[in-house]
């Protein structure tokens, strides 16, 4: 249980640290690492050097203080025995002059009296008893802490202790100064190293991140469907390999996209051709029925009428009358057939007239109430392909209403604006779920969508079970060719 808690704790910490590290960008990461390393190295080296230096200098001073003390003791022997205090004093002064860090030197006779010293005035209290040495000792050193810094105090017996003791104090102040100077030097070096490290790291991150940032831009472009851009290969490393892989991928995607676009283009060309051919064929047959066949039948009608007029026999008259009835029926049927194939009104009089006629036919055929409004669509003609498409769309939509909707009221709105034309076919029938519409078997709505797409239009179906159905089909219209301006220049 305890181990589990620790583990949990640890993972919490790891994730907290990772949150911080992960949040900053690569440049900050690399700079952080470099700065951290340099600072760590600098501090460690400084501490190490300081310790080493301190020890070495302390030892050196100690050895020198022993050497100096022994030298003084040797040279002082005769002078002490001869009680030549003046020469003794000069000896101490010379020694001090030769050793700049010699803080002090003095000689104590065997009675314990100070017989010569380097202190100009007044001998410091307690210094005499701070260190002592016995006669058969070689020397004794003590590290004294004074208000002028540390001092190595060494006592050496003179003439085996019979002529007193020589004492010298070597100051350690120089040691502190040296350490301070070296530390300062080290710090400066560390800062310079850090500065160079930062420059190097900045350069490194630039080299590292530039291709990555470029790849990021490229990936965004690809996500937006632009496959044309290629990444530049900066170096021969792993990032270079990534760049190559990326470029290959873009190339492949672009190829796929090109092929798709080509296929789509070809498909819509085929569909356009099929639709156009179908309309042309229907138009031709309708015209044929209308112009030749019907005319011939009309001639027959007229001929029968003349025949009846010229003969008196009631029997013959009756027969001719029957024939006329039959021909009249055939003529009517042909006419309806031609109109269903393709109403000549659409070509001769335009969309508004054709729709009016078709809606009127639907009303009589289905008994449905169908309201019609065509704002902005007076007698101006639209592009004939567009008129055909709109007519067929309304035809299919109303057919669906009659076949599927069980509606009581339907309405057709065709609204023409300057830049677009919109057809809305709505019913108050049973509705359906447009999302459940499958592609196969149902040519109607898919045909509408297809026809719309071919002329840059689109279909929106709004319907839900129990809420009726509304079809919106919208086509863009080309901008009118500066009509107003032309009229103006003509002066009308």
């Amino acid at each position, binding site marked *: 249980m305890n181990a589990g808690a620790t583990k949990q704790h640890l993972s919490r910490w790891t994730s907290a640290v990772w949150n911080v590290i992960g949040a900053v960008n690569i440049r900050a990461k690399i700079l952080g690492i470099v700065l951290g390393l340099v600072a760590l190295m600098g501090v460690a080296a400084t501490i190490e050097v300081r310790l080493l230096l301190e020890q070495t200098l302390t030892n050196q001073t100690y050895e020198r203080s022993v050497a100096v003390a022994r030298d003084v003791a040797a040279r002082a022997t005769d002078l002490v025995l001869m009680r030549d205090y003046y020469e003794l004093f000069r000896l101490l002064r010379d020694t001090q002059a030769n050793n700049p860090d010699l803080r002090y030197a003095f000689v104590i006779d065997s009675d314990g009296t100070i017989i010569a010293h380097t202190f100009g005035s007044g001998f410091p209290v307690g210094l005499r008893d701070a260190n002592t040495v016995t006669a058969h000792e070689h020397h004794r050193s003590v590290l004294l802490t004074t208000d002028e810094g540390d001092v190595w105090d060494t006592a050496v017996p003179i003439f085996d202790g019979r002529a007193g003791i020589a004492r010298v104090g070597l100051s350690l102040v120089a040691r502190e100064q040296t350490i301070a100077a070296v530390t300062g030097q080290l710090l400066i070096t560390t800062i310079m190293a850090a500065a160079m490290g930062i420059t190097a790291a900045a350069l490194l991150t630039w080299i590292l991140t530039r291709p990555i940032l470029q790849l990021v831009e490229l990936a965004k472009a690809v996500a937006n469907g632009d496959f044309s851009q290629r990444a530049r290969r900066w170096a021969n490393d792993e990032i270079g390999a990534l760049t190559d892989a990326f470029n290959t991928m873009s190339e492949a995607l672009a190829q796929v996209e090109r092929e798709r676009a080509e296929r789509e283009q070809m498909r819509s060309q085929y569909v356009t051709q099929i639709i156009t051919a179908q309309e042309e064929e229907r138009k031709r047959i309708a015209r044929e029925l209308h112009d030749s066949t019907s005319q*011939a039948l009309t*001639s027959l*009608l*007229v001929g029968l009428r003349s025949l009846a007029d010229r003969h008196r026999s009631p029997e013959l008259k009756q027969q001719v009358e029957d024939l006329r009835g039959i021909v009249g029926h055939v003529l009517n049927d042909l*006419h309806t057939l031609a109109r269903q194939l393709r109403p*000549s*009104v659409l070509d001769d*009089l335009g969309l508004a007239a054709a729709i009016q006629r078709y809606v009127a036919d639907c009303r009589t055929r289905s008994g449905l109430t169908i309201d019609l409004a065509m704002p902005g669509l007076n007698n101006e003609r639209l592009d004939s392909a567009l008129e055909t498409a709109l007519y067929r769309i309304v035809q299919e939509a109303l057919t669906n209403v009659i076949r599927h909707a069980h509606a009581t009221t339907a309405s057709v709105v065709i609204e023409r604006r300057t830049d677009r034309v919109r057809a809305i076919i709505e019913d108050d029938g049973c509705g359906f779920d447009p999302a459940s519409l499958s592609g196969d078997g149902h040519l109607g709505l898919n045909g509408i969508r297809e026809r719309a797409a071919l002329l840059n239009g689109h279909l929106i179906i709004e319907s839900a079970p129990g809420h009726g159905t509304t079809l919106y089909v919208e086509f863009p219209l080309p901008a009118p060719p500066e009509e107003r301006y032309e009229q103006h220049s003509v002066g009308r």
Partner: protein
Amino acid sequence: MSSILLVDDHAVLRAGLRLLLDAQPDLHVAGEAEDSRAAVAQAAALQPDLILLDLSLTNCSGLAAIPSLRTAAPQARILVLTMHDDEGYVRQALAAGAHGYVLKRAADAELIAAIRAVLRGELYIHPALTRQLLEELLPQMPPASPWESLSEREREVLVLVARGYTAAEIATRLNLSPKTVETYRTRGMEKLGLRSRAALVQFALDHNLLTST
């Protein structure tokens, strides 16, 4: 005796018509033409009392020929004889200056009567086609507008519906749910006594609700 010029691109039909008309004691066919150019020339030369004109001629529409026929033979009456039974054609023919409109499928039964009527100076239109023309002449009763009685929201929704926005678009525009939009729409249309979207569009047109943005 009234002289008649036959204009039709169908020779057999022209022959039949000539037979039929010449059999009438008071009528005779003075000439025939099969396209609009020949028709204008014949009309100028013959100055007939009546021109029997088909609307679908080979090279151009009979409709387009009416004005030049009228200038070529100003006193001639023009009777259109055609397959087309759309009132749009009737309107255009009358606007161009025709005096009568007969359907070919009624040629045997009505033609003679129509010719006589037009010659008498009357206007003859096939009975099936007159209804719609007359309906337009009837005064349209604008209903007393309860537009002002609608709520602000109902009016906003109805105007957008009339402008052709989808329910989804209206919902986003007005910051409403599609269901609420439907409710406002149904309620508003009920108050206005409108039964369908097309009726609403017509109402909006009549009340100038579509113009401003």
